[in-house]
């Protein structure tokens, strides 16, 4: 056992903050009304008086009066939260603690993690064939398939779609409305191709690109297919 008479410990307390907006004569009455509404709730509660919202140019604030008003209404002021621009000497006679208002902590939004870009739009890359029955969706980005997309498979992207293999299944680009999205493939054997809902099915394709490298794009609300 230690022979020390005391021990200092860190702790976090929950207290009321009395945020003062206006140092007028009405303060006393308004506080009384508030406390009288639920007297039990405020009974001898510790309170921190926050003066940081007061106009920093005011000089004639009587801090002792504020403390007295609080005590008369059954509150126990324990400290002043204080704007750094205000004159500290006026608070001293109250003999209460002074907490400097930390504007950095409360007023600014949390800094973004510099290691993570806010919007990661790097393409989704699939390194194996997309088989019949599989569905792959690249949200908010391009989709790159290194391999073929089988008949009965479906690839979707909010951006462009690149298929480095045969496109035999369905490909839907710009599904959330990007009219500039395009679809590229090494061999066009697609069942269905769609950009923002404008679609072509295989029998309506331009036969010149069938089983050849091709790209699909939207122009004047019409889906075009051209050889690469």
């Amino acid at each position, binding site marked *: 056992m230690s022979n020390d008479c005391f021990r200092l410990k860190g702790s976090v307390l929950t207290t009321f903050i009395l945020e003062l907006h206006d140092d007028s004569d009405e303060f006393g009455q308004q506080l009384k009304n508030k406390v009288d509404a639920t007297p039990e709730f405020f009974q001898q509660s510790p309170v921190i008086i926050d003066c940081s919202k007061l106009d920093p140019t005011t000089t004639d604030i009587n801090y002792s009066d504020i403390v007295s008003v609080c005590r008369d209404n059954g509150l126990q002021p324990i400290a002043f939260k204080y704007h750094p621009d205000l004159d500290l000497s006026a608070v001293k006679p109250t003999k209460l603690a002074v907490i400097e208002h930390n504007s950095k902590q409360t007023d600014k939004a949390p800094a973004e993690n510099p290691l993570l870009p806010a919007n990661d739009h790097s393409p989704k890359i699939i390194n194996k064939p997309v088989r*019949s029955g599989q569905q792959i969706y690249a949200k908010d980005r391009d989709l790159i398939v290194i391999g073929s997309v089988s008949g*009965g*498979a479906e690839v979707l992207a909010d951006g462009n779609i690149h298929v480095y293999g045969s496109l*035999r299944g369905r490909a839907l680009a710009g599904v959330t409305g990007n009219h500039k999205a395009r679809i590229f493939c090494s061999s066009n054997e697609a069942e269905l191709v769609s950009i923002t809902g404008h679609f072509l099915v295989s029998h309506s394709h331009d036969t010149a690109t069938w089983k050849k490298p091709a790209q699909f794009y939207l122009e004047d609300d019409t889906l075009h297919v051209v050889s690469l």
Partner: protein
Amino acid sequence: MAKIIVVTSGKGGVGKTTTSAAIGTGLALTGKKTVIIDFDVGLRNLDLIMGCERRVVYDFVNVLNNEANLSQTLIKDKRVNNLFVLPASQTRDKDSLTLEGVERVLNELAETFDYIICDSPAGIEKGAQMALYFADEAIIVTNPEVSSVRDSDRILGILQSKSRHAENGAMVKEHLLITRYNPARVADGEMLSVSDVEEILAIPLIGVIPESESVLKASNQGVPVIHDEESDAGNAYIDAVKRLLGEEVDFRFLTAPKKGILKRLIGA
């Protein structure tokens, strides 16, 4: 450590059980201790193809439910040493299979066997998923026609997403086995060619089994076709087993035999 090989296809009637019996027998003939498990609970067929249907006492489901142990249930092949069959139940359904149970049985088999062949039921539902879940390698049996090829493509997708290896970020080794291949009909444009199928499925080819009357005869007699050394199909399976074991073997039976002038004249 035993190698677990699933024989699967998606589509029914393409020759999974015939292939399981032939490949299993072929592996055993090379001296590998092999067991073939019939996962087609409710539609038990493997025992017929293997010719051991009269010797089934207990079955796979009995072992899963701890109603019988493996040594009581495994049926030793009469023709080949090192070859065993674990028959399916004919009276239950696929719901009798559980991942935990199947894993326990496979682990127990893996202690003594070199190869475990899982004969998958058709479809992509529970039975097929149970058969492929623990596989290290897969033999995809495909007929040279479009619906079979598409179903095989579907099962390949399931294999690489819903198997144990896939869930652990690894790959199941895939082999393509084309059955009922008829070179004459391919030449006439009535049937997909080997290269057509290979192009769509994009997995390595392990064998091409020619369409042959000997397969049906072998099934009805309960003798795996690989025992029929006279038949093209039997020889093609022998080649496939060699390739499975890592040997390089040239493909045979890919072209139609040329008809002699006499045969052409009599129209045979």
